[in-house]
């Protein structure tokens, strides 16, 4: 066996049949990201997010009637006990999802009795009631923002400590990109969010940087081996391609897990898994196509570094 040597840029290009220069085309990637993010941001300002009762406070009742129920009958019954503008959604004929303002126990009992007499008997064992007071909703929003800011702070500190401050900044920009994609899409399509959405966003936060760090790790390794006159851009492009298999395969396994939760996991985890699916996908994209390219861009403008085109 001949003496081994680390792969050269040419060899790395040869291994990947789909090779193209990712770093050179960076402005295309930035443009593509903006194309998705900008409408999302505009939508966020125009119509905001569709907040569920976890944030706004309110009562949500999911009930299954023993016989097919009529949506109009439910709405009428709700009006008869003085609940204005309630929203009723029917699924599979028997199951109703009722959203209304926060009801106290007496009011809820009154409503349930009225529904039972006017609409029909319902299954007690499949009844689901969520009541969130307005104060709890505000607390959730406040805590979510606090958690996000603290997580950003800790991650910048950790990456700066393990790599360099520029790496941390590039990584965090890519990360904010992922969060904006998720939040923006949820705003654009007005998908209703609940408290699991907060968990999803924070997990995306932790997970998408994971992908980026693996690529940065390779850049750090290759940077140390750079010779005089080597191009920083080429070195980054090589690093991105060297970790390509890993980036794609890891994301695939996570997406497999998320798809099975999304398809089979039932209604309660739909919001969570949808947000995660979008976030993980966007995270993989931004790790490969944005993070390292932002790094190149910053390094290029920071100092007259020997970058040869």
């Amino acid at each position, binding site marked *: 066996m001949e*003496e081994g040597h680390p792969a050269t840029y040419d060899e790395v290009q040869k291994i990947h049949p789909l090779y193209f220069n990712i770093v050179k085309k960076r402005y295309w990637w930035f443009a593509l990201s903006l194309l998705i993010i900008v409408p999302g941001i505009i939508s966020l300002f125009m119509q905001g997010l569709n907040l569920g009762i976890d944030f706004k406070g309110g009562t949500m009742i999911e009930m299954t009637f023993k016989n097919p129920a009529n949506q109009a009958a439910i709405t009428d019954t709700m009006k008869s006990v003085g609940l204005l503008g309630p929203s009723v959604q029917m699924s599979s004929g028997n199951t109703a999802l009722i959203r209304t303002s926060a009801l106290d126990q007496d009011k809820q009992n009154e409503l349930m009795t009225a529904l039972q007499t006017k609409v029909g008997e319902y299954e007690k064992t499949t009844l689901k009631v969520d009541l969130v*007071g307005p104060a709890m909703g505000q607390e959730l929003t406040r805590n979510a923002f606090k958690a996000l800011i603290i*997580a950003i702070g800790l991650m910048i500190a950790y990456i700066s400590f393990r790599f360099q401050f520029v790496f941390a900044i590039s990584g965090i920009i890519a990360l904010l990109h992922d969060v904006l994609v998720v939040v923006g899409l949820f705003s654009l399509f007005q998908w209703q969010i609940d408290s699991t959405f907060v968990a999803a966003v924070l*997990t995306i936060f932790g*997970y998408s940087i994971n992908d980026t760090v693996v690529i940065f790790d390779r850049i750090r390794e290759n940077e140390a081996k750079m010779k005089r006159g080597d191009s920083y851009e080429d070195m980054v492009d090589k690093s991105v391609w060297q970790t390509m298999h890993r980036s794609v395969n890891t994301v695939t396994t*996570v997406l497999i*897990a998320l798809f*099975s939760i999304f398809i089979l996991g*039932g209604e309660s985890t739909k919001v969570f898994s949808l947000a995660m699916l979008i976030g993980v996908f966007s995270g993989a994209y931004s790790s490969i196509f944005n993070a390292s390219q932002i790094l190149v861009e910053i390094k290029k403008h920071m100092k007259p570094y020997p970058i040869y085109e």
Partner: protein
Amino acid sequence: MRRGNIIKLVALVLFVAVAVALSIKPLVDPAKGIPLGLDLRGGVHLVLQAEPNKNGALITSDEMDKAKAIIAKRVNDLGVSEPIVQVDYDKKRVVVDLAGITDPDKAVDILKTTAKLTFRDPKGNIVLQGDELTDARAGQGQDPNQGFIVNLTFSSDGTKKFTDLTTKYIGQQIGIYLDDKLLKNPEVRMPITNGQAYIDHYATLEAAANDAVLMRSGSLPVSMSIAEKRQVGASLGIDFLHKSIKAGIYGLIFIFLFMLVFYRLPGVVADFSLIVYGLIVLWIFWMFRVVLTLPGIAGFILSIGMAVDFNIIIYERVKEEVLAGKSLRAGIESGFSRAFITVIDAHVTTFIAAMTLYYFGTGSIKGFALTLGVGIIASLFTAITFTRFVLRLIVGISPKLETTWFGVRRAI
């Protein structure tokens, strides 16, 4: 060397298979297995917020303790198994978890009632305070026509007052009020002088017991409102549980297949490690009584997807090392040590997110953060110890192992 390694490998596979077989029963045992959250077995999660006093005085921790004690007493009288009652002194809250309860609405009614018990004359004036009552018990009336009854016992002071009252209002009604709500309006048939009275004509024993609980547990020192209520019907919870288990199984199968197709022999090792990983995580849950919630299971399934990451990083690294001309064995050693740094850096960030979420999250979100955090640590542990050990055993079998088994094509 060769035969020894094969024997060790076979023994290891058998050992893990036996461990899995022996683990299933204790882990899913309904009583002693991994505890399930309310969303998975049905029940009510209640957050009761103490309302600020009307006179503006601060609610003291002492009052919160008293409120907790009274609520705990009422909960115990409901006959729920393993109820949880906790106090949050900072936010002035009492959190109550009742699992497997049949009529949650009634339970909520009983728990949050401020329940200041008073006896009032026919004109509605308060004539006796509830604190004079020392006990109230439900029972069956001696005469079958009486139906079910609540037996009342008064203190010595109360006995005197009650004697006067029952003498004065004979033939009239004395109202028993909880706060301003009339609970019962019994008629006085004869003067009661021994401090032992009863209220009769309850339709069911349960109704009598509910009133008895309210009467004897006394009043809450502060009034409570429901800040949050999560109520899940029992069969709905089981449905959620089955769905998420199904999701987990399918996710696992497809991840298994993916690793097998892409990484061949090491893929088998990765799948094998994944089983060990799952076993470790579940036993940690079991050991620390981590309550499994719906988001918690989602976190666990997600962590399975992430756990193979370590294997992927290492295998890709090994491929590179072998392509660069190293032997398989040397490739694995250097691949491991190099990939280790990468993996640590990458997972610390996810771990940071999980911990922040745990710290700030509430309820089921905490459960998610916890399973994710435990998952990350367990996957690191499994990869460093188990995966490496098995891979070493395999390459130790023969130095002339086909590198294609490792998915490496030496084309150059």
